[in-house]
């Protein structure tokens, strides 16, 4: 080889590792760590319960189920495969969906206080879901409730937009107030509906507080493909969301069709919330906390923020539900709210400062 060790400035420049590859590597590592965290979470959370089943046995059971034969206890296998695992996987998917809805809404409103629960989308979705289970025969099979929840959520976010427009100025204050008002309205209507039609106050609790009691593999099968599809669609909008963080005007001059995504993204967020609420009621604050924590850890770029928030949301809801199971089966929404409210106050304080 001919050539010295020293090169011109351009050559040195050219030899520098490219920033885009460094970034890609970093993103990959983040996702790998989160995946490992998720797997560990699933196994540990499955072990916890009224009957403790050691993680090693869980691995044996999963291996047995996958065809690698090993001797396992029949009773433990039933607990794991029919009770705990579906609930944990469902919790993971719902946490991911809510977290994604939060990322999208925070990006859309350029504000970290936005969240499907706070803006009333979850309440709307609960009302839709509850109405469909009480009133409607399953018109389109198992998708009736999710669809009704989606429509409820969409109605709620449309109303919030309407109220904000009515007050004239689009500020985060008016947005939050409108969201809270609409959330109350829908919760009230929901309570009346359930009280009048089914007289079952336990049901009210399920829809308003949120819980993962009815988990089974069927629900997992319904949510999984929808969630994957919606995640891919959200990723397709990640660059638009990034540009939007610099303001509408800059986004538009970067070639983003702002008026289109301002219509599309609320629909996407409502869909995600609807799917989650249809099967677990209105679990709050995940969409607020997870995107915010992940933004601090991985940065504001939505191409990494979207997948990592989804994974973190899954991990968080599994742990919250494990705590709920240990605390005499309280609704998991209570646990997330207990974590979320202090977090919300912390965020408000930071913004005021």
């Amino acid at each position, binding site marked *: 080889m001919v050539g010295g060790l020293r090169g011109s400035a351009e050559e040195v420049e050219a030899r520098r590792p490219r920033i885009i590859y460094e970034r890609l590597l970093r993103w990959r590592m983040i996702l790998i760590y989160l995946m490992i965290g998720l797997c560990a979470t699933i196994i540990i959370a499955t072990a916890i319960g009224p009957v403790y089943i050691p993680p090693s046995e869980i691995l044996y059971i999963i291996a047995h189920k996958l065809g690698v034969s090993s001797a396992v206890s029949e009773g433990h296998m039933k607990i794991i495969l029919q009770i705990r695992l579906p609930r944990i996987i469902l919790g993971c998917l719902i946490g991911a969906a809510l977290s994604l809805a939060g990322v999208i809404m925070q990006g859309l409103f350029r504000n970290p206080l936005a969240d499907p629960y706070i803006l009333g989308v979850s309440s709307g979705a609960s009302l839709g879901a509850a109405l469909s289970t009480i009133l409607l025969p399953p018109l389109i099979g198992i998708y009736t409730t999710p669809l009704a929840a989606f429509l409820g959520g969409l109605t709620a976010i449309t109303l919030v937009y309407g109220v904000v427009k009515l007050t004239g100025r689009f500020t985060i204050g008016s947005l939050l107030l409108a969201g809270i008002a609409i959330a109350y309205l829908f919760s009230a209507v929901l309570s009346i509906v359930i009280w009048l039609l089914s007289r079952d106050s336990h049901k009210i609790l399920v829809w308003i507080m949120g819980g993962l009691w009815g988990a089974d593999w069927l629900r997992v099968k319904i949510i999984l493909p929808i969630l994957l599809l919606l995640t891919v669609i959200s990723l*397709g909008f990640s660059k638009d969301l*990034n540009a939007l963080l610099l303001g509408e*005007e*800059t986004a538009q*001059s970067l*070639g983003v069709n702002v008026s289109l995504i301002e219509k599309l993204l609320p629909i996407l967020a409502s869909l995600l919330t609807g799917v989650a609420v249809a099967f677990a009621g209105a679990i709050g604050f995940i969409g607020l906390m997870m995107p915010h924590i992940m933004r601090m850890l991985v*940065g504001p770029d939505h191409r990494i923020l979207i997948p990592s928030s989804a994974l973190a949301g899954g991990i968080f809801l599994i742990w919250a539900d494990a705590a709920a199971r240990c605390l005499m089966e309280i609704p998991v929404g209570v646990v997330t709210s207990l974590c979320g409210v202090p977090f919300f106050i912390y965020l408000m304080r930071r913004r005021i400062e």
Partner: protein
Amino acid sequence: MRLKADKIEFYYNARKILDKISFEAREGEFIGLIGPNGSGKTTLLRIINKILEPKAGSVYLDCKKLSEMDWKEIARELACVPQETQLDFNFKVFDIVMMGRYPYLGRFSLEGEEDEEKVRYWMRLTNTLHLADRSIKEISGGERQRVLIARALAQEPKILLLDEPTANLDICYQIEIMNMLKRLVREIGLIIICVIHDLTLAARYSDRIILLKNGRIVEMGRPWEVLTEENIRKVFNVEARIEYDRRSGSLIIVPIKPVSEEALSVRDERVRMLARSRVRERS
């Protein structure tokens, strides 16, 4: 590339903001847009950038109507540095400039090596490459403005719109940024349309100046044609002295005192006549 605005009109509610604005800009031209507050400068920039739709008239890029082009297509021809850019989120400087490549990327594709080369090139030119790893929130105002200009240039536009790029900057940054913009106009034939409040700065850097008042073009032409004492009195209501500085080869505008309204209306007709005769003398 040619930019043409043809009889643009714009209303906000019932109020007329812009009234039959027509002008053309050619390759390698630095156009200063001046006028008092509320004269429609920013509105005009927004219309050229398709952020606002004019009620009548249209903007043409070469022969294409702006209203018939899609957003990405426009973003490859025309970039904009608005007056205020929200920078509440912790992006790195490099990521911000890289956003300039978005108009060239598909929905699911990531930036490639070529994009990084281009971003590095523009960052070197705007003297921001050393800031690449810093957060956009922790750099100074002058640096931030250069980064935002680098972001706009990474779009590789033919036309660059700027809304008071030097507001809130100290004089060193002001001339640094203006010199850089002027060099781009000379060297790569960029068209720059720039809203400037500082009349001396406008006189020094603009090839042509458009003077707006109440949504109308009062005067358009070379700095010495537009920036006359009469025009400044008429448009800004300010008594000003204008001098020619030999060393910089440009005009210096020194505002003296405001003129009262009634005096102005009486004088209005005379001023216009005077202005016309001056232009005639020169040409």
